[in-house]
């Protein structure tokens, strides 16, 4: 379980990026953090494994408070893996395998175990066979997969992804979402920050909305997407499927306050509406 209590953080005295954020993510959950650009999502993420030390507030994992000494930090960074938005910021080694091995080696594991983890992690993200390749010869989607493998190799309990779908092509986005859902089913808690509202109801059980350094709402996708004033504040929109049903309601169809968020839900709703007539 990951718990953040009333975190405040300022970059300088005129600009407070986080103004007291508290949130709780249970084990095995897959949650989304929504918010416009500059809302403080990345800043919040960098607190979760102690890269930033908050001015006020605490971070807890499994009830244990994050302290900022070397030993505790290493332990927390093994438990909470962060996948950065731009894979170029994360992948630094001259070959793919060396980059994936970086985390486990820092944990001081024996070489055989590291080799095993590198092979497994690359296989898990579908990048087997690229071990000896230079990262800068890979495509954007492939780099993202390598970055995720680098985190997986540390066997984290919680995986935090900053805008993982940014810059990927549509098939890349679908494939990545599928991979993340599978990882979640295998037991990793996943926290994603994103603007891609269309995909959120598909994977997220819980949604947090961050606006100007404050958490203004949390709940299921259904709850969040039915509150227009919150979406307005966060510069967000409802998923495109939902827009369709709002429009249909204006034309006289009765929705009974139930607006589908995903394609599957929409299918059911259509059948229901067609049967009524």
């Amino acid at each position, binding site marked *: 379980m990951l718990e953040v209590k009333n975190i405040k953080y300022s970059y300088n005295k005129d600009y407070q990026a986080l103004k007291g954020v508290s949130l709780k993510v249970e084990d095995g959950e897959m949650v989304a953090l929504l918010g416009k650009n500059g809302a403080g999502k990345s800043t919040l993420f*960098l607190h979760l*494994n102690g*890269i930033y030390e908050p001015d006020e507030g605490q971070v807890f994992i499994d009830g244990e408070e994050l302290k900022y000494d*070397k030993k505790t930090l*290493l332990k927390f*960074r*093994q438990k909470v*893996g*962060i996948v*950065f938005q*731009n894979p*170029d*910021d*994360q992948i*630094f*080694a*001259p*070959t793919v*395998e*060396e980059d994936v*091995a*970086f*985390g486990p*080696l*820092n*944990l001081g594991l024996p*070489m055989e175990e*590291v*080799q095993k983890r*590198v*092979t497994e992690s690359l296989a898990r993200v579908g990048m087997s066979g690229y*071990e*000896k390749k*230079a*990262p*800068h*010869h890979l495509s954007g989607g492939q780099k993202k997969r390598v970055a995720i493998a*680098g*985190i997986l190799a*540390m066997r984290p309990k919680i995986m935090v992804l900053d805008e993982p779908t940014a810059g990927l092509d549509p098939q890349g986005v679908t494939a990545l979402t599928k991979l993340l859902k599978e990882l979640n089913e295998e037991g990793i808690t996943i926290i994603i920050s994103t603007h891609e509202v269309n995909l959120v109801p598909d994977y997220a059980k819980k949604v947090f909305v961050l606006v100007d350094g404050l958490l203004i709402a949390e709940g299921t996708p259904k709850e969040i997407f039915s509150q227009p004033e919150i979406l307005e504040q966060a510069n967000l929109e409802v998923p495109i499927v939902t827009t369709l049903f709002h429009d249909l309601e204006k034309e006289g169809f009765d929705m009974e306050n139930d607006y589908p968020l995903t394609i599957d839900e929409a299918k059911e709703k259509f059948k229901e509406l067609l049967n009524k007539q």
Partner: protein
Amino acid sequence: MKFDMDYIAHNNELSETNPYFKLFLTIILLIVTLALDNLYFDIFIFIVMSIVILAIAKINYRSYLKFLTIPMAFLVITCIFLIFFFGKGDVIYETGIFGIVVTTDSWHYGIYTFFRVMACLPSLGFLALTTPIAKIFHCLDTMKVPKILIEIGLLMYNTIFIFLNEIDTMQKAQKTRMGYNSYMNSMKCLADLISNIFLRSLDKSETLQNSLDSRGYAGELPVYVPPKEE
């Protein structure tokens, strides 16, 4: 055609040969060339190594020429300076401008420096063009070269590609908006580019530090030994 040295190093006939052998051969050739100071030997090495690079490693001759041109420009400038502005001894040619003369000494220096460097270039090129950098670092590491040097080299090597990419993108953005269309304008554009790339580099270095820390970086890059291939 774009000249991508890293790509060439990974994709040529000699990529998979023993990196230790290549490294030692290069070092020995460099030392011998510099120590012997013999014009004929220099030319001999230049020809032999060029043949190795072009015929055995099968590297495209245009890439090889590009590899040679950049240092060659520096070499020519250096040698011109050597010939006209250095050395003592008998005057063999007077230019008649500000009393600048060519002496036997400076002529000798100029010519010998030129050919020595000419021999060293393909020797170095042999290593640089046929060996992926990861392998070179690996060799250096097992040879007990100080870790700090290897780490700096490693990080620099990787970031240089991101750096070049950024420069390329920014330059295109400037050109799209009529940059570099006159002499003065070019100077200003270049100045903007340089200051901007400096700020961005600082920013990037901080993000890289964060991402390394996130994976438990403790001030030392560990060395990974890949499993033996069956």
